[in-house]
């Protein structure tokens, strides 16, 4: 092949995407990192003072919100796995000729705006709404009973909104399993449960792994669900960042919180990948 041109081709292919990411991801990120170390206010302006204390101040003030976000993230991710796995399993193995129809039906609500869907949850679950209202008037629930403004409502909303990001990777992993491998397990004296535990589950774990990353990260930093379905006691770190940035104009605090959260999530995912993403874990699960 033509030497130079051949060697340049991969770089030329990466150029448009690379430029895009540089302009809209890398540069803003560096800018944000710089802002997180500034001091000042909106009126007097911000100056770069390498004020690392922004971080300790922010974490000190909002540490409980960070912990709550991680906790909600864990709960919602676990709920997503519990709901997504059986659904993905059913579509992959029992869906027959209509697999794509089932997948489409499952994803259909997600063609509607994320915010709109969350607000419709609020309308349904509101204190005297179509669900709780009749139950209360029939005396089945006490008058003070409510679903909204609770951690349960926020985690439920998060679970619902991010479910497809769990179903799709699990479905893809299950769908890729050669059915003859499962038959081989039956042939080698495994019952239905053993075949699932030793063969299907370990072979689908990469899908669960991908699903966890794709749900846990956005769920933990989400602010829509907490602001629509939650109350003052269920604030997540995403709400704090949003308010610090857009309402209080404390750009340095918002930036510091964003970076602290990012570092936490990266460290968490990295540890998770180290612990679960290796061949040895898959093999241990199969033994």
């Amino acid at each position: 092949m033509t030497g130079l041109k051949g060697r340049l081709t991969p770089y030329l292919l990466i150029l448009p995407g690379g430029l895009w990411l540089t302009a809209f991801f890398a540069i803003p990120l560096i800018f944000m990192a710089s802002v997180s170390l500034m001091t000042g206010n909106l009126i007097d302006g911000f100056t770069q003072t390498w004020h690392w204390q922004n971080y300790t101040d922010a974490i000190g003030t909002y540490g409980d919100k960070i912990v709550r976000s991680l906790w909600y993230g864990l709960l919602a991710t676990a709920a997503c796995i519990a709901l997504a796995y059986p659904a993905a399993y059913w579509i992959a193995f029992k869906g027959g000729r209509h697999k794509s129809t089932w997948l489409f039906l499952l994803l259909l609500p997600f063609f509607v705006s994320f915010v709109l869907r969350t607000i419709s949850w609020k309308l349904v679950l509101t204190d005297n709404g179509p669900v709780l209202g009749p139950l209360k008037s029939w005396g089945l629930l006490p008058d003070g009973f409510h679903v909204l403004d609770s951690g349960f409502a926020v985690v439920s909303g998060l679970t619902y909104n991010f479910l497809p990001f769990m179903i799709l990777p699990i479905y893809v992993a299950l769908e890729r399993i050669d059915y003859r491998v499962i038959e081989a397990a039956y042939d080698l004296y495994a019952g239905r449960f053993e075949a699932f535990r030793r063969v299907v589950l370990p072979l689908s774990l990469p899908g669960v792994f991908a699903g966890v990353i794709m749900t846990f990260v956005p769920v933990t930093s989400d602010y829509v669900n907490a602001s629509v379905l939650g109350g003052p006691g269920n604030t997540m770190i995403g709400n704090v960042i949003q308010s610090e940035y857009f309402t209080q104009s404390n750009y340095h605090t918002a930036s510091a919180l964003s970076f602290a959260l990012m570092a936490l999530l990266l460290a968490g995912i990295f540890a998770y990948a180290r612990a679960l993403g290796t061949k040895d874990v898959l093999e241990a699960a199969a033994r």
Partner: protein
Amino acid sequence: MTDTSPAPVRDDPGRADTAVPAIELAGVRKSYVSHGETVAAVRGVDLRIGQGEFFSLLGPSGCGKTTTMRMIAGFEEPTAGEVYLHGQSVTGVPANKRDVNMVFQSYALFPHMSVFENVAFGLRRRGVAKNEIRQRVGDILEIVDLTGREKRRPSEMSGGQQQRVALARALVNRPRALLLDEPLGALDLKLRQAMQVELKRIQREVGITFVYVTHDQGEALTMSDRIAVMNDGLVEQLGSPREIYERPATKFVAGFIGTSNLLSGTVTELSGRDAVLSYGDDGRIVVPLREDQTAGAGDALEVTVRPEKIEIVGERPAGGGSAVPATVAEVVYLGTSTNYLVTTADGTEVTVFMQNANNSDDVAERGDRVWLAWEPRHSYAIGGGANGVRGDAPKAAV
């Protein structure tokens, strides 16, 4: 296990009783409903496969051989009929409770496990002690020549090695029968031939009944003790490789196994158990009839003869053999032999192989008018009698 066993239950695989077949199929049928239509995959198969036998199910794709094997393995239940393993009916017994193991066409190795774990899988499921697992896996890997590869992943191995892992994974359980579904299909020709010899050696070494499904007639002929040739959901012929090749019972078997020539003529007379047919203007064919075959003067009959049994001569041969006039259409020199494609009076094409042993010169050239001669005992009448074909079938077919 089932409690509806009509035959006495035998629990000791060690004392193999040759009177009880390892596998028996009695009137086995299987039909599927597909798009509202019932499709018969297996239309009544009776087989008795003996202890330690290398038995092949041979046939083209869609003949029902794989379905038959899957019913033995327990992946499919027969629509009608019974499967017996060592005299015991296994109707309703799931695959994981049957004492047979399968080698899958694409190996179906567990991709997330090492070679050792793949092979140990069946033993672990049966709760075999750890020391014994190590011992038995080590032994079987030695037999299949994979010692030292225990830690490899299937994806890190060649096709031939994966094939042997699949074999070891099944054999390590010491099943009463091993079912092999086109196990060499994915290998290239050279490796396939080496594995044929290897499989035969392993089978002798472990002494387990092998049921081998293949569409490759060469493979079946080389390896099997007996072959069942299947077509359209039925067994066309059951016999040793030699019987199947030399004496095909049906037109299908004659055509499917090796190259075969098929000539049709009209019976002029019967001479003892031989039928004499007139062919063309002055040719004649003499063919022995099997005991179950009948034919009378005036019946049309089809005769099959293998290419290597025919001799090409220049003059009408004397004596009581077959003699058919023909014209040479093509001559193909192949080194050790020469292929002749000749055309008879009624336009039938006949292939003739002649060894280039003594004469390096061709016996005939394109366009020559020659005579084809062969011994009556090398040709077989197709149809005409029992074995699923009535005596007057050829006449009705004309």
